[in-house]
């Protein structure tokens, strides 16, 4: 692989800095929980479906406990108590609670030890669900092997899960290795996970457990038909990160968009909430072997792709450190970056190669998620098609892991079936004719590409130094990323954050954290 010689000491320095920054935030994280985290626990305990009022049952149950002013204990203990009291299944128990037929906090059903025992039982089952998902996926991959990287990633986004399925089948037919169902606009701002199969989304399809199931089943069939394991992606970042992670794990999803900062920056979600949620959601992903994809690519849609290249690298390092904190291994760290430089800049492609190779050098074992040009895509679809073709070349040359297929109609509309076919044809072409280009070239020592990568790394180190001085939360409120600033107490979802009481319990988290 064409290589950029970097100073190993400097790499260690930036990784250490990211670790320190993470540690600071982690101090805050462990002292807090959120309603979404609690709802995720309920989901893993087996609660699903809607309450009579139409809200998802996990929401109803947690809301009741919160409105009683008791949320600092977390939901696990009172819910275990309720199960003992009702003698029913978790699902039935939740229904009874929602119907007001059963009181949360009524610990009469069992002793302290029995309740703890019940919690242990529930949480072990919960973790077993995650483990089972991991095992099932591993078995599938034994039967129909994984394709070589870069994996060809294609999106579907019709808003209708059944139409999406047709589109996904077509994409797999043409060569896709990964299918991402794009989520309906602003679902990330919903403080609940919608329920059931859905057919009416905007700019995408709702992320629901039922939709996950429908798509995963279709892809299982397609995998067998085309003899390669086709991965399924959905979105976690938002107000329900941990819950979506739970649903995704249950339905054997392979990848989740799951960033420690995306929601803050791009959705104006409160940062405390986001940090708390991402931690638990990632613990879930780690156990269920769900690759996370981070969203650094988004930075370059608002900030300048050359001037702000180092913010991408800094964010990758932070996402990596936070991911590792949540037990994610290298093979599950799909850190994001993008090919977003204005094509009017001379030698833009050289910058792109430098940036892409830098990411590869810093995270050699991570399945890097490489995003195609979007912001500078032209409404001239033929021109845009050329941009994607060079993007494809940069990707295969620098050995990226997850290759988001650029679509020639990016500047126009969410992809049509014919658009997807044309775009993946370019990927197939380039990956085949330039498969080993990266092995066969070297970047000139002291040349532009090497120097540029070094410069970005230097700027990254400076930025991380600054951040570690003021702290990550403060840095974000100063607009260090994506030219966007968010106040520590601003944004959506802060009301869902609470400080853990002395008697707080989340045995699922305890098990997941205990894993080595």
């Amino acid at each position, binding site marked *: 692989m064409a290589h950029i010689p970097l100073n190993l000491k400097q790499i260690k320095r930036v990784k250490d800095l990211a670790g320190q920054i993470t540690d600071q935030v982690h101090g805050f994280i462990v002292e807090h929980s959120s309603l979404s985290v609690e709802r995720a626990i309920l989901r893993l305990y087996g609660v699903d479906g809607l309450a009579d009022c139409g809200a998802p049952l996990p929401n109803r149950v947690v809301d009741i406990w919160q409105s009683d002013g008791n949320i600092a204990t977390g939901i696990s203990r009172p819910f275990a108590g309720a199960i003992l009291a009702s003698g029913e299944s978790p699902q039935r128990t939740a229904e009874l609670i929602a119907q007001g037929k059963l009181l949360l906090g009524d610990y009469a059903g069992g002793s302290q030890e029995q309740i703890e025992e019940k919690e242990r039982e529930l949480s072990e089952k919960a973790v077993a669900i995650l483990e089972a998902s991991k095992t099932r996926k591993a078995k599938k991959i034994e039967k129909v092997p994984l394709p070589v990287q870069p994996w060809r990633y294609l999106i579907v986004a019709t*808003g209708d899960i059944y139409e999406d399925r*047709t589109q996904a*089948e*077509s994409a797999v*037919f*043409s060569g896709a290795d990964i299918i991402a169902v794009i989520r309906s*606009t*602003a679902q990330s*701002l919903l403080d609940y996970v919608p329920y059931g199969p859905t057919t009416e989304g*905007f*700019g995408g399809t709702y992320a629901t457990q039922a939709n996950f199931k429908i798509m995963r089943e279709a892809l299982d069939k397609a995998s067998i038909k085309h003899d390669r394991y086709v991965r399924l992606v959905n979105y976690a970042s938002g107000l329900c990160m941990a819950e979506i992670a739970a649903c995704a794990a249950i339905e054997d999803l392979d990848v989740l968009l799951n960033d420690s900062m995306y929601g803050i920056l*791009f*959705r*104006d979600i409160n940062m405390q909430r986001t940090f708390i949620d991402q931690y638990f959601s990632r613990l879930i992903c780690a156990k269920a072997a769900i690759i996370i994809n981070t969203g650094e690519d988004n930075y370059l*849609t*608002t900030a300048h792709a050359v001037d702000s290249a180092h913010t991408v690298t800094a964010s990758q390092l932070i996402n990596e450190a936070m991911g590792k904190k949540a037990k994610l291994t290298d093979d599950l760290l799909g850190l994001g970056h993008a090919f977003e430089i204005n094509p009017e800049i001379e030698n833009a492609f050289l910058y792109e190669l430098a940036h892409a190779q830098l990411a590869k050098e810093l995270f050699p074992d991570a399945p890097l998620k490489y995003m195609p040009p979007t*912001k500078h895509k032209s*409404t001239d679809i033929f021109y845009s098609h050329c941009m994607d073709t060079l993007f494809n070349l940069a990707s295969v040359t620098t050995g990226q892991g997850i290759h988001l297929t650029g679509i020639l109609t990016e*500047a126009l*509309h*969410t992809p*049509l*079936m*014919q658009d997807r*076919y*044309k775009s993946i044809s370019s990927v197939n072409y380039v990956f085949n004719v330039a498969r080993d280009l990266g092995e066969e070239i070297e970047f000139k020592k002291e040349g532009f590409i090497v120097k540029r990568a070094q410069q970005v790394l230097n700027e990254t180190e400076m930025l991380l130094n600054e951040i570690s001085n003021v702290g990550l939360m403060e840095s974000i409120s100063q607009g260090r990323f994506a030219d966007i600033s968010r106040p520590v107490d601003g944004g959506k979802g802060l009301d869902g954050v609470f400080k853990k009481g002395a008697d707080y319990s989340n045995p699922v988290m305890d098990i997941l954290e205990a894993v080595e």
Partner: protein
Amino acid sequence: MKTDIIKPYGDTLNDGIVQLSFTLPVENGARAKKAAERYVKKLNFEKVTVVHAKKIADGFTCFMVYASAKPTIDYSKVEAKEAEFEHMDYYKINAMIKESIGRPIIAVGATIGHDAHTVGIDAIMNMKGYNMDYGLERYPEIKAYNLGAQVSCENLIKAAIKYKADVILASQTVTQKESHILNFTELVNQSIIAGIRDEIVLLAGGAKISNEIAIQLGYDAGFGANTVPSQVASFMVTQLIKLMHPTKKQTRDSA
């Protein structure tokens, strides 16, 4: 009126050549190609060549076609509804505001609905501007408030009232399922309900917005892709003067 009859051009005037690409829900094969050819003929083409047909899913085939279009169009009868105003530069605009309005213009902008795309409205409003053309915030004679994205129509109108805005700028990028139409319409309605529609200049913008559609929806003008801030500012001041000096406006119109 003189006519000017035209047709598409490939390499010979009026050869009518058009490139098409589409998918039909049929399995590829000779019949499929025939169907594509016939279909294109139904679209008023002749000399249809299906140059490429490829299966892209079970039961779906993508076609590429070259064909010669039959209709002609009289170009002399085609009129376009661009926002009509003189495109002035930064200095001229500021001078004109000073002279004809006598106080800074107040502009409030946002991306409305659930749309999170801010790059477009920022390009028009933020200091930095777009394509080497300063944004509204930079104009000494414009007070610009950019409320960002995902702003509800209600809140935008409230802000406009609070800031005593002369101009409201609304941006929409997502157009899937006509969501931009819904949001833009809602904003107009809210402005009417609030009783401020007649006192303000109401502008719509976004990659897929044309002046024509904006006017249809009840806006004073609409601005699409590649708009630069000085165009918007030019229109704002021109329109505001018309609004504030209706007589002057009439004389202009009759001129």
